[in-house]
């Protein structure tokens, strides 16, 4: 039902069941929000989005209150502005005054609000609630004293991941976001996906920094620093550095990294292709042997951590292969060192991933020497590029030969949820029929959805594939499979919603628009590249012909 309401004296149309905020956003009025997260249940916790509705005693939170026909709304009346200012002042009074030294300076929503509401003076001078920084986890760092308790991280962890690793503890002004028994994040149910960082408005949550160690390695003449870049990273960097489309980002990035001092640059999508081939082989074998289905993918470290810790009985359903990062890491350590005639331990192997969980993965694998020495998130790499003063817009493309030259798009597709399944299907089809799948696109597995399903006919049989992203969706799917409601041959799981393009290590402020453009970039590349299937990528024969001792 459509009716009209009055906002700031103007008549505006509204729909029943719509919140006041959504009407405002449509009609060119911006009210500040803090706890609001599009697509989530509104909690009305921060009270920033309050508006004045004539006839109602208090102010009303526009994010949670439905519009009603009789409403006359004032969004920026003196009463409302005073309330908003007071709320921000109260938050600032309990916030450390260290903006200049803060990681999020410039990207901090609290800072933006203070400036938007023209707050120039500290009104409340007394105590602050300071809590120890939680450095316990190997990929995520929590600084509760910078937390404004908007609760977004809790909701993401609950509604998207289904993990509930963090929750508000304590009462009154002693409330804080805590872990169970205050034991630190590492001991928690946390799967280190980093989605909480992506929604945090302040610097209360951030990744554990690795770039200082990387810079040290770059400056160390005894070491031979090399770097691998995950396919999910490039788009995000281009957005952040304002690089226009049409440039050969892969080349530019490679050149930039060499300028910084990396001796060789590898593309993780080469090992992702190997992984795709491996999965299709394992799946084909399982189909042939009539083993119990489904086969779960294992390239998302958060998902693997979940299975190892909570559902070890499902390990036998997982693809038995290392993640692309580790495959590449061990190839660099073993074969590349041999090729270049460098001692193994002199290689300082860095990986740039759109992921915080990879930091965790890198620390748990490797025997005497870790396969990967440091994992950088996309954000950290951007920071380093800035630090090294590299300007992509004026930079000339280099002509250095990339490590493991040939690139295919099959592995690169694994940057988005559904892409890996698509790549596996292409190779599986070839393996089972001896022919190439045509067309290679599988539209059911594309798009920004948490759950995608496809039935593919290969030979005489039809096989079921599902791609779920956001761990909560995966948990639901497992439940359905276990209760017999659903049946699949292969299930691709990504802990982050929509996959690595929205990973916990990506650029902050990733919105739907950015996700769509990253997705488009991946699919466009798939259209343009010559090699669309993993089994035709010449690079992977490099791996196959040089079997790794440790994989």
């Amino acid at each position, binding site marked *: 039902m459509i009716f009209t309401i009055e906002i700031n004296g103007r008549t505006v149309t509204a729909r029943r069941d719509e919140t006041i905020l959504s009407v405002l956003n449509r009609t060119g009025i911006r009210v500040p929000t803090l706890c609001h997260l599009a697509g989530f249940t*509104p*909690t*009305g*916790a*921060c*009270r*920033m989005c*309050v508006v004045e509705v004539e006839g109602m005693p*208090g*102010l009303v*939170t526009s994010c*949670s*209150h*439905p519009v009603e026909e009789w409403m006359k709304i004032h969004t920026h009346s003196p*009463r409302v502005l*005073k*309330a908003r200012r*007071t*709320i921000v002042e*109260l*938050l600032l*009074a*309990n916030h450390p005054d260290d903006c200049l030294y803060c990681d999020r300076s410039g990207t901090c929503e609290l800072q933006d609000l203070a400036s938007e509401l023209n707050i120039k003076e500290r*009104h*409340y*001078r*007394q*105590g602050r609630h300071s809590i120890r920084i939680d450095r316990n986890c190997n990929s995520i760092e929590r600084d509760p004293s910078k937390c*404004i*308790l908007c*609760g977004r991280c809790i909701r993401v962890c609950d509604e998207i991941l289904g993990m509930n690793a963090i*929750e*508000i503890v*304590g*009462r*009154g*002004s*002693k*409330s804080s976001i805590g872990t169970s028994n205050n034991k630190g994040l590492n001991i928690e149910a946390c799967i280190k996906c980093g989605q909480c960082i992506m929604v945090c408005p302040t610097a209360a949550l951030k990744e554990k920094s690795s770039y200082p160690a990387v810079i040290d390695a770059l400056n160390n003449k005894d070491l031979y620093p090399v770097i691998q870049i995950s396919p999910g990273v490039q788009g995000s960097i281009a957005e952040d550095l304002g690089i226009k489309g049409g440039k050969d980002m892969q080349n530019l990035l490679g050149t930039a990294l060499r300028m910084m001092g990396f001796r060789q640059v590898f593309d993780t999508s080469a090992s992702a292709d190997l992984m795709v081939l491996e999965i299709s082989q394992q799946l084909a074998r399982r189909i042939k042997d009539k083993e119990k289905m489904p086969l779960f993918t294992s390239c998302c470290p958060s998902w693997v951590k979940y299975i190892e810790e909570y559902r070890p009985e499902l390990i036998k359903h997982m693809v038995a292969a290392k993640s692309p990062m580790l495959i590449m890491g061990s190839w660099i350590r073993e074969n590349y060192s041999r090729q270049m005639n460098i001692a193994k331990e002199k290689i300082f192997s860095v990986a740039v991933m759109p992921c915080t969980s990879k930091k965790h993965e890198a620390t748990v694998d490797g025997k005497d020497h870790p396969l990967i020495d440091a994992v950088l998130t996309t954000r950290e790499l951007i920071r380093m590029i800035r630090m090294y003063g590299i300007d992509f817009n004026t930079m000339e493309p280099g002509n250095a030969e990339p490590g493991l030259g040939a690139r295919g798009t099959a592995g690169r597709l694994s940057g988005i949820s559904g892409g890996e399944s698509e790549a596996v299907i292409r190779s599986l089809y070839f393996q089972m029929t001896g022919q190439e799948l045509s067309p290679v696109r599988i539209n059911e597995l594309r798009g920004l959805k948490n759950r995608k399903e496809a039935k593919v006919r290969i030979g005489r049989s039809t096989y079921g594939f599902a791609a779920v992203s956001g761990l909560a969706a995966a948990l639901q799917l497992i439940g359905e499979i276990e209760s017999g409601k659903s049946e699949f041959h292969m299930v691709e799981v990504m802990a982050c919603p929509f996959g690595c393009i929205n990973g916990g290590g990506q650029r902050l402020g990733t919105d739907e628009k950015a996700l769509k453009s990253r997705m488009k970039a991946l699919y466009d590349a798939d259209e343009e590249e010559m090699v669309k299937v993993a089994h035709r990528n010449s690079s992977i024969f490099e791996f196959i012909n040089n079997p790794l001792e440790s994989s």
Partner: protein
Amino acid sequence: MDNYTEDKSFLLEKVLKNLAGEYQKEDLEKISIIKRDKIVTPVIYIGTGTCGLVAGAAQTLAAIRKYLSDNKIQASIVECGCIGFCSEEPIADIHLPGKARISYRKVTEDKVEAVLSATFNKNVNEDHVLGQYKSIPSETWANVPFIDQLPFFSLQQRLVLKNSGFVSPLSIDDAIARGGYRSFYKTILNYTPGKVCDIIEQSELRGRGGGGYSTGKKWKVALTTAGEQKYLICNAEESDPGAFMDRAIIEGDPHCLLEGIAIASYAIGASYAFIYIRSDYPRAVTILEEAIRQAKEYEFLGQNIFGSGYNLNISIRQSAGAFVCGEETALIRSLEGKRGTPWSKPPYPAESGLFNQPTIVNNVETLANVPAILEHGPSWFKKIGTKSSRGTKLFSITGNIQNAGCIEVPMGTKLSDIINHIGGGVKDGKKLKAVQIGGPSGVCIPASGLDVEIGFESLEDAGAVIGSGGLSVLDETVCMVDLSRYFMEFIQKESCGKCIPCREGTKRMLEILEGITRRPREESTHETLERFKGVVQLESLAEVLRDTSLCGLGQNAASPLLSSLKWFREEFEEHIFDRRCSAAVCRELRTFYIDVDACNGCNVCQKKCPENAIIGVPKIPHFIVENKCDGCGICFEVCKFNAIIIK
């Protein structure tokens, strides 16, 4: 009760199901025996509610048992709930065959012998007598006032508490003999759920938890909203400091509450009801558990109640005692097993509450009113109270008052009557300063404003709220600034921390209040200026809190402060400008002096002073160094010669 099963079928068939109310003579006889109106052996009643037990009722009870067995007296003992006169507990009543039931106050363990032996010898123990009950066929005691003519009781009208003090809360037979569960039977037999909602709406019963929303209207929303499973929740999370009305109802007459819950559940179509009760009420929990067990045994609860096909389960959930969980949405979250934080309404619980199903949350007192309304009809209920506020209201009177306890008065009673007549005025001849109504979310009413009628709107017009019904009487020894600070501290500790204005705002307000009840730490840091600025901010901050907080806890967090500021502004100014607390409560603002004429130099204060602020030599009057004194008051307490003066 020993004769439990014997009476069961009689009570069920002849009393409960006798809706016409026509009794045969022998039935009436039997009822009066069960009701203990007609007795052959003496009956001793003792109030073993929490207030009684705290005053020593358990020891009194043991002493009574010992006395009876020592003197070989055949008598039965009934442990009943509190009659409301908490300051006179332990209260023990003796009902001798043929005599009126006589009530004694403050019957502690050591007084049992004197009281019992006098009474069994047909004499009255003058020291402890409280009053006697009216009962027609019995002979009255000479020179003993009737209970209902005592000032404490004379203005009361007890509907909800009518059985408290008469029935044993552990006996369902007692309840049935006094009409318990008849309304429920009648409801199920005669009315559709919609009709019950109509009746309650017509009666104009309003929620007693503080909000004052029409109960019938609320039920109708839940009844008409579609849902797989509807729930009724009885809110017994009574966590205002100084409020204990709900506890009195549960400990006095649990079956009345259960019947109310059962009717309400039927009215909204709920087959599950929860009683959310504080775990700090162990006695009430025990009594409720037993009452539910008995009601199940009598098949008033369970499957296919009275053959109607209606099912109802009532279960108890004990809360951990968070103040905010008295707010209905926070309560629901807590019941779901989550952190007890409120959510932004809408959706209202009646539409989407517990496990996202239609849920009604009603206060204990509201539900306890329901059976009587169905028994006597809505027009009967509307005759009680005032035009906008029908019925009675329970209050717990505490503080510096002569007669403390739990009372039930019709709406429209003057507050001054409650304080001066029922409460008997301020204790120890002190002067009344203010009455705090509604606890930490309530306000204070100054002594000059007591001429106000109790009622939702009438109190609101006077700038007050009815709240849940806690009345704290404050005399001249109370410092209003300190009281505001106390309530702010309470709210700050009990804030759930979800919304920013409440979490951060109360913290700052508390700091400001602490600032003015404290001595300045360092003059060099412009503390005086900051303090002054803080006070200017208090009112503005309070306004934002009221405007923007998520739930009632935050919205009303500043209410005690604002009303104190309104009525006792000079006390705040005195604290700010003169750094003086005339009630001598704010410790750091107290200064002590030694009266040189009274001091004989005994040296005791000097030895006890923790700050070494007292100087002097023995036998010569001492002297207090003001800068060193931190106002602890130890010298004042230890001086035997009244030589220390507070200024």
